[in-house]
């Protein structure tokens, strides 16, 4: 029998190398044409504990993780204890024979006979590949590209461990026990997670400066930028704290470098004064907040969608902003580009809200058409329309001609106090009104550029599921499952949650028989925001706040409760 869809989980302690083999397996699968959804679960520690690397593989277009496990690759006994109950009907366990797992679903592999302890993870990889009936040569190739540069001796041992495992699997009737159905001829694709896509998107848009203070799950965005910094001509600086990070980025942006900062909720809390400064000085800045469960330190390595309202209102005083909430890896790329463009266009703070689940979720993605995706247009050298130059000249759309300091004889003055058109501090209260109005006029431009929420399904459905950001995938899959069941279901997915333009979606809410919101938080933040902006009360909500991503199973269970 061949399987179109297999959900495999590699489990063990931090430090056992499970992410490495997970990545190799993921890449090998994508090279053969499969689609994947990776979810990573790890603890706030470096060694020990219980971590998993979960790959859902399919010949079809999948969008979300799955709960039931078809293949459990257990690097320790705890993994079996924790996940045994999740096994599907065809579910199977791969474990070291010496762990003595009393389960007839377990393929007991004599790890010690097949390789040195250091290479147990590769053995597990090999057995898994074999069980899936997967061509071992592809794994070998991927393994090479992973370890190639390093020690050739290690490379050789890796290869040996792999072929030994395949041999053992074949001899012991494990090969092909969960054979994957073949794929159509594969297009070349990338294996990319949300944070990698953000980094690529930022570079394609011409980001030139980035300052950061490390914080999970945002750090990998920065590490990806740093890795490319020399080649792409970026400066990425680790700041002394998040306050420094946001102010440095503002300084760099003021001086003409498209800039971004990336952090998580707690670090963003320290940037809030800087957000307000970006608005007042009208300095472009992209702020990426990778959410994790709070309050305070919370669950630092888990996922949540708990900071929407916080980000929407962060900063003292009043000013416009925009918030993008990508739902897919591709959208991480495109919305980061859009955020950088929009920041330069409206000259102020623009947000991208992601979360740990999406940050770490690798997918198969078609390469982006980088040749045809232009970076943001550089500013700052055109002649000023009025002399002497007025940095904050009053304009119809609220956006003033922007010059850069030092590029011409025109002087650029920016001020955090209320200021006159030339940027100097003022106590003239009539000017105050003009400047407040000017800044608010940008909201119109932001509204005109809003990405409408995506509606899928017939008009007037029995059930409309409303969601945002990374919960999009699970919601779409839940809807598909319900439709298969004969139900009349539609979905409305927001990849921009601010500004909200009611004409883009209110009719859908009104026409559905029942509306249910689905969010990865405890208080239903999008639902509340929708009511504030449209008056429409979403009467029923599905919420998750245990630190794990939503799944279609979770949603379906909640709907039938």
């Amino acid at each position: 029998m061949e399987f179109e869809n297999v959900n495999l989980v590699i489990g063990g302690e931090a430090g056992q190398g499970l992410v490495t083999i997970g990545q190799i397996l993921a890449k090998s699968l994508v090279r053969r044409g499969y689609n994947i959804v990776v979810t990573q679960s790890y603890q706030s520690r470096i060694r020990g504990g219980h971590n998993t690397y979960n790959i859902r593989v399919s010949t079809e277009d999948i969008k979300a993780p799955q709960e039931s496990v078809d293949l459990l690759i257990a690097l320790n006994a705890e993994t079996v204890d924790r996940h045994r109950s999740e096994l599907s009907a065809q579910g199977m366990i791969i474990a070291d024979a010496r762990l003595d797992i009393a389960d007839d679903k377990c393929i007991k592999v004599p790890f010690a006979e097949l390789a040195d302890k250091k290479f147990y993870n590769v053995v597990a990889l090999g057995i898994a590949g074999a069980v899936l009936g997967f061509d071992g040569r592809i794994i070998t190739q991927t393994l090479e590209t992973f370890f190639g540069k390093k020690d050739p001796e290690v490379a050789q041992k890796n290869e040996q461990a792999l072929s030994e495992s395949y041999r053992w699997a074949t001899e012991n009737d494990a090969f092909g026990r969960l054979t994957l159905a073949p794929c159509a001829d594969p297009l070349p694709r990338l294996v990319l997670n949300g944070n990698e896509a953000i980094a690529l998107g930022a570079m394609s848009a011409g980001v030139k400066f980035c300052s950061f203070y490390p914080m999970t799950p945002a750090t990998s965005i920065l590490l990806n930028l740093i890795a490319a910094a020399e080649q792409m001509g970026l400066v990425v600086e680790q700041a002394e704290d998040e306050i420094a990070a946001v102010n440095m980025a503002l300084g760099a942006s003021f001086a003409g470098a498209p800039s971004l900062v990336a952090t998580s909720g707690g670090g963003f809390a320290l940037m809030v004064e800087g957000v307000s400064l970006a608005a007042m000085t009208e300095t472009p800045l992209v702020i990426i907040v990778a959410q994790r469960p709070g309050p305070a330190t919370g669950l630092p390595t888990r996922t949540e969608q708990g900071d929407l309202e916080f980000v929407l209102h962060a900063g003292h005083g009043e000013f416009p902003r925009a918030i993008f909430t990508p739902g897919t890896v591709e959208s991480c790329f495109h919305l980061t580009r859009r955020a950088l463009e929009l920041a330069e266009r409206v000259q102020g703070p623009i947000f991208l809200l992601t979360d740990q689940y999406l940050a770490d979720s690798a997918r198969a993605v078609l390469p982006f058409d980088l040749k045809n995706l232009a970076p943001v247009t550089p500013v700052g050298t055109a002649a000023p329309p009025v002399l002497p130059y007025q940095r904050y000249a009053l304009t119809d759309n609220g956006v003033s001609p922007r010059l850069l300091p030092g590029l011409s004889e025109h002087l650029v003055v920016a001020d955090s106090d209320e200021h006159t058109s030339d940027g100097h501090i003022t106590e003239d209260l009539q000017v105050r009104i003009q400047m407040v109005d000017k800044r608010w006029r940008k909201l119109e431009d932001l509204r005109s550029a809003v990405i409408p929420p995506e509606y899928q399904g017939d008009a007037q459905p029995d059930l409309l599921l409303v969601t945002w950001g990374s919960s999009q995938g699970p919601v779409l899959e839940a809807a598909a499952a319900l439709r298969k069941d004969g139900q009349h279901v539609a979905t409305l997915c927001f990849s921009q949650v601010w500004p909200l333009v009611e004409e883009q979606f209110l009719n859908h809410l009104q026409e559905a028989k029942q509306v249910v919101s689905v969010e990865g938080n405890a208080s239903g933040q999008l639902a509340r925001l929708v009511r504030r902006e449209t008056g429409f009360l979403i009467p029923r909500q599905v919420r998750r706040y245990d630190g794990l991503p939503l799944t279609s199973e979770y949603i379906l269970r909640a709907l039938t409760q």
Partner: protein
Amino acid sequence: MVSIEDYGTYETAWCPGCGNFNILKAVKQALVARRLEPHQVLFVSGIGQAAKAPHYLNTNLFNGLHGRSLPVATGARLANPNLTVIVESGDGCNYGEGGNHFLAALRRNIDITMLVHNNQIYGLTKGQASPTSDEGMVTKAQPQGVPSAAFNPIAVAVAMHGGMVARGFAGMVDHLADLIQQAIAHPGFALVDILQPCVSFNHVNTFAWYKKRCYELPSDYDPTNWEAAIKKAQEWGERIPVGVIYRNPRPRFEDHFPVLQHGRLGGQPVDREMLIKIMHKFA
């Protein structure tokens, strides 16, 4: 040729008799002496009476948040290494709210000049103790006297082997202008801590008080001698040395970034071919 007039004359919001006026004068002198045109210079300031100073100069200015001028200046300098970047703000701003950035700037040795109007008080907020207020000083907010020891920025900067560490006095304008000029010329981070009488709120450390105590370092003083410098940095009270207390020819922060040798970041095109290569590493 640039002249003092190019830097303009403005009405200020300062109190008559404030030490800030002399500092403003010295800054202008130094800029002209360094032949810097107004558009070549970027001032970055925070919030406070001192932080208003660059508003009274005809030049580029980013007047940001209280305590945050150093990070803004750092970002600007990294984005455009052609700019002469000068931080100008108060003691509260730079050593209080912004203390962590001060440490980081010393470690980085980035090519920024930092002018601190040190009036040993929070002026704009009406006279609370600042980090440099002398222990025991009585203010409305410290009616029993300041309970903490005063922060000695010179000592910390020398202990951390900062690029250039100097002290000036608003009552010695030409000497101060010369210090500022040297600070701008110094390739690396240069601190000029400037003793500045606040006639409205600091009735202890007055013009007369400073005048009596400030003395110029002798001509044979060697600022590259760290041990001498750290000792000199301790002098405070009856005698207060002014001048360049320490100098350290460390490499500049900027020199660690090859990309900065090609000029400002925003002026460099995005290498799409390279990015395509980078993207394909994910294939």
